[in-house]
């Protein structure tokens, strides 16, 4: 072999200067650079599997992010905005990524950057506006609670479109498991815990919040109050409104610092995920960064605290339950076993495996209201899989998933109901009399 080897140009072109200097996206470049384009994320992505276009895959969206920085696409390009908007933010791509691309952070940075060049949809803006303000959130939740107690949501849950879906979501919140009252014996030997009350959890899942306090008490945690706490800011961060998310985070950090709690218990996976990442959210804030990281390190999903304590076995609850893993619990927090450990502490409970339980349900915060078509497409196989289990209960530990699956079950006329694992454990303790 004598032919000379070619002097072909090295294929990589250097980035010709950043097109969006000083933006959150420019800041995220190292995370973008970690992507080697291997494509291992494709089959984990619910929007890629449903929309069948790589623009709607993690690899494709990262490529769009890079292209935004290179200047080959502009932030006001409607198709780029559409594909970034269509991401559920489920982060199922993260645990399969060999390079450890922090996709959730890249998405937030991109949305924050795009937000500057176009308005957020009105409905999203309205929801975010209300959630950031106690004086609006309380009456809104009060009104929702009153409405949920009437037959109206159930009556309207069948109508087409988002209004019908929203009504079905409300209707699904009033269908928890019956249980008798019990008074937990309080030892508190496992440490002091303050709970994030949350917005939707506090407003529509108050039963679950009370159950969370009781089951933690039964398992040896001393429950403290943390007054002054607010919405966690997850919805705002996911929509790219980082300023509001940070302001809410600072209030929560201060509130939980004051409480003196060793652990911060969170029973909504989406809230827990962002709180654990408060350090990243405030990374550029010299005054708050360390405090944020310290508070973030004390955050636990309620199932983690319960699993660490056993949890204590309850009374018999002979029901069939299937479990759906919330994305922000399994992918963002990487908590997979703890909820199953909680369910295993309930004698008589039969856990029916759910096919593709690791797939997103399409809730994704307020995504189901903003991107209804894609959300429905992602929800459809979930409902079919739930139907196939024949189980009358679907346990899942996140407010959004509870309502998304709950609403889907109502609208598809499947008799199963969604429920938080903590409610099941609580019912089991109630059966024991404590």
């Amino acid at each position, binding site marked *: *072999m004598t*032919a*000379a*080897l*070619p*002097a*072909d*140009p*090295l*294929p*990589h*072109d*250097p*980035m010709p200067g950043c097109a969006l200097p000083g933006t959150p996206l420019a800041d995220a470049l190292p995370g973008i*650079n*970690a*992507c*080697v*384009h*291997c*494509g*291992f*994320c*494709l*089959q984990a992505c619910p929007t890629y599997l449903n929309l*069948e*276009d*790589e*623009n709607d*895959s993690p*690899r*494709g969206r990262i*490529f*769009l992010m890079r*292209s935004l920085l290179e200047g*080959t*696409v502009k932030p006001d*390009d409607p*198709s*780029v905005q559409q*594909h970034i908007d269509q991401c559920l933010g489920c982060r199922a791509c993260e*645990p*399969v*990524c*060999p*390079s*450890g*691309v922090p996709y959730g952070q890249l998405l937030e940075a991109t949305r924050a950057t795009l937000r500057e060049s176009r308005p957020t949809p009105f409905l999203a803006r309205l929801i975010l506006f209300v959630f950031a303000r106690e004086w609006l959130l309380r009456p809104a939740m009060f009104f929702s609670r009153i409405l949920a107690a009437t037959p109206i949501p159930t009556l309207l849950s069948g109508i087409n479109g988002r209004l019908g879906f929203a009504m079905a979501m409300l209707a699904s919140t009033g269908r928890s498991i019956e249980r008798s009252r019990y008074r937990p014996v309080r030892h508190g030997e496992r440490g002091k815990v303050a709970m994030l009350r949350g917005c939707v959890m506090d407003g529509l899942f108050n039963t679950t919040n009370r159950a969370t306090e009781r089951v933690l008490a039964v398992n040896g945690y001393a429950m403290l109050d943390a007054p002054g706490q607010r919405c966690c800011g997850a919805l705002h961060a996911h929509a790219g409104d980082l300023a509001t998310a940070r302001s809410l985070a600072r209030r929560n950090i201060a509130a939980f610092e004051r409480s003196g709690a060793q652990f911060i218990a969170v029973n909504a996976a989406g809230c827990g995920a962002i709180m654990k990442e408060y350090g990243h959210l405030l990374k550029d804030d010299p005054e708050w960064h360390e405090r944020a990281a310290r508070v973030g390190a004390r955050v636990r999903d309620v199932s983690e605290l319960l699993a660490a304590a056993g949890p204590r076995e309850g009374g018999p609850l002979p029901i069939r339950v299937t479990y759906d893993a919330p994305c922000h619990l399994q992918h963002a927090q990487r908590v997979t076993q703890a909820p199953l450990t909680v369910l295993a502490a309930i004698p008589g409970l039969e856990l029916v495996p759910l096919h593709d339980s690791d797939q997103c349900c399409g809730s994704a915060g307020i995504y189901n209201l903003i991107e209804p078509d894609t959300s429905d497409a992602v929800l459809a196989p979930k409902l079919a899989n739930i139907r196939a289990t024949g189980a009358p209960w679907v346990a899942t530990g996140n407010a959004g998933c509870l309502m998304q699956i709950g609403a889907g079950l109502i609208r598809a006329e499947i008799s199963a109901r969604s429920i938080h694992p903590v409610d099941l454990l609580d019912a089991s303790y109630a059966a024991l009399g404590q």
Partner: protein
Amino acid sequence: MTPPQASPAQTPSSTVSTQSAVAERLAEIVGERHVLSRQSELLVYNSDGLPGYRRQPKLAVFPGSGEEAVAVVRFLAKQGLPFVPRGAGTGLSGGALADDIVVIGLHRLKKIISLDVENRRATVEPGVVNLRLNKHVAPHGLLYAPDPSSEAACTIGGNVAENAGGPHCLKYGVTLNHVLAMTVILPSGEIVELGSKVGERDGYDLRGAFIGSEGCFGLALEITVKLTPKPQTVRTLLADFMSVDAAAHVTSAIIASGIVPAALEFMDGPTIRVVEDSIYAAGYPRDAEAILLIELDGLEAGVAADLETVRRVCLDGAARNVKVARDEAERMKLWQGRKKAFGAMGRLAPHLIVQDAVIPRTKLPEVLATIHAISEKYGVVVCNVFHAGDGNLHPNIAYSADDPAESERVHKAMIEIMRACIDAGGSITGEHGVGLDKMGYMEAIFSETSLNAMCELRSVFDPERRSNPGKVVPVHACKEWRAVSGGRLRIAEPPAEVHEPRPLEAEPARPSAR
């Protein structure tokens, strides 16, 4: 099998010339949502798993059924338009890039058409993901043997195009050995059956010619694959070494002992450490300079004996430890680390260049030493992770393209590494294909006669050179290439002048693509 037929209504016939008119006609076939023509939406289709190469397609079309795919190809044939078929875009040679022409994405064709457990075969559409096929057949005690490291993402259609390999091809053979038959649409729009579901057909093996043709011969729309019974026993060993040289010698010694392992994989120190930093950390010893991952399968009794032999060969060859996976979970962990190693290298630097060369196994020690010397000379870190059993090297270099000096050093190092592989009697690609990336090396290993023979073979399937133009064989090596204007949406001149037939000269046998 009934070949997919296009209904006449689905094949718009009059000639159209503008991009928007072509897009409109394609949208009539596949639906508007599945045709992309905006520049900003086509960007993500401008690279595959080797993103250093970028070529912007003119249009992307994603048929949702075999019938739609047929209609698309026939429409493009009528218009005389070139196109590039694309699977999941996980290729590592730039093979699925479309330079200003139409890209046909086949990822929506993901039906497993039939599974015949008794005869151990399955018929699938080209967009079925390799791992999904394996999960589908696993409950029946069967598996599809070719297991490229990208199995979780790559498609069977792409595997056919590249004649994909994988760790277990050492014992089980490559894609070529596991595809029985295909329904292929030729670029002309004609549908042909290649191979036979029941066994070898008489005559020339056109199926064999098609597999590994890198999308240049047409599109396989239905692929019937052979399924393999799961072995009774599988044992996986991890041997770690304090020198690359020792591991390389042991590789040859294992094969020389007469044992054919199901897989025999090599990872060097830098690769071990990058994997251990990732979520696919497999428990490889971080301080080792090399590990061998050796899998033995077959009947219980035979595997037990082989296991002892391999263990002894490893220890005799200065292995520090030899560990056998205790259970399936540990075995999977060891394998996941190996299979995700390529992806994990994004941790080292923003850009990655990956090579794929085959050398005679016995030359491993000296070639690896040469590669090490080259990496020292240029001050670059080479991560070696490869299929040692069949001498298929994958040197990877992570670097920053933003640093021109570093880029230059990486460039020179890679050329010297390839040179060393070729000088050792090797080949330029084991399993990634030639695509764009290796095209420049083709003339270094093939004579003009051989290259012309390849061009002539291509003429049989695609006389107009419209399917994946500008790949595999360098343009100037094929005289008839002049007719195609190198990837414009419109072909400037009438296709392909007729080529004078020439006798084939004897060509020294090359290691088969794997």
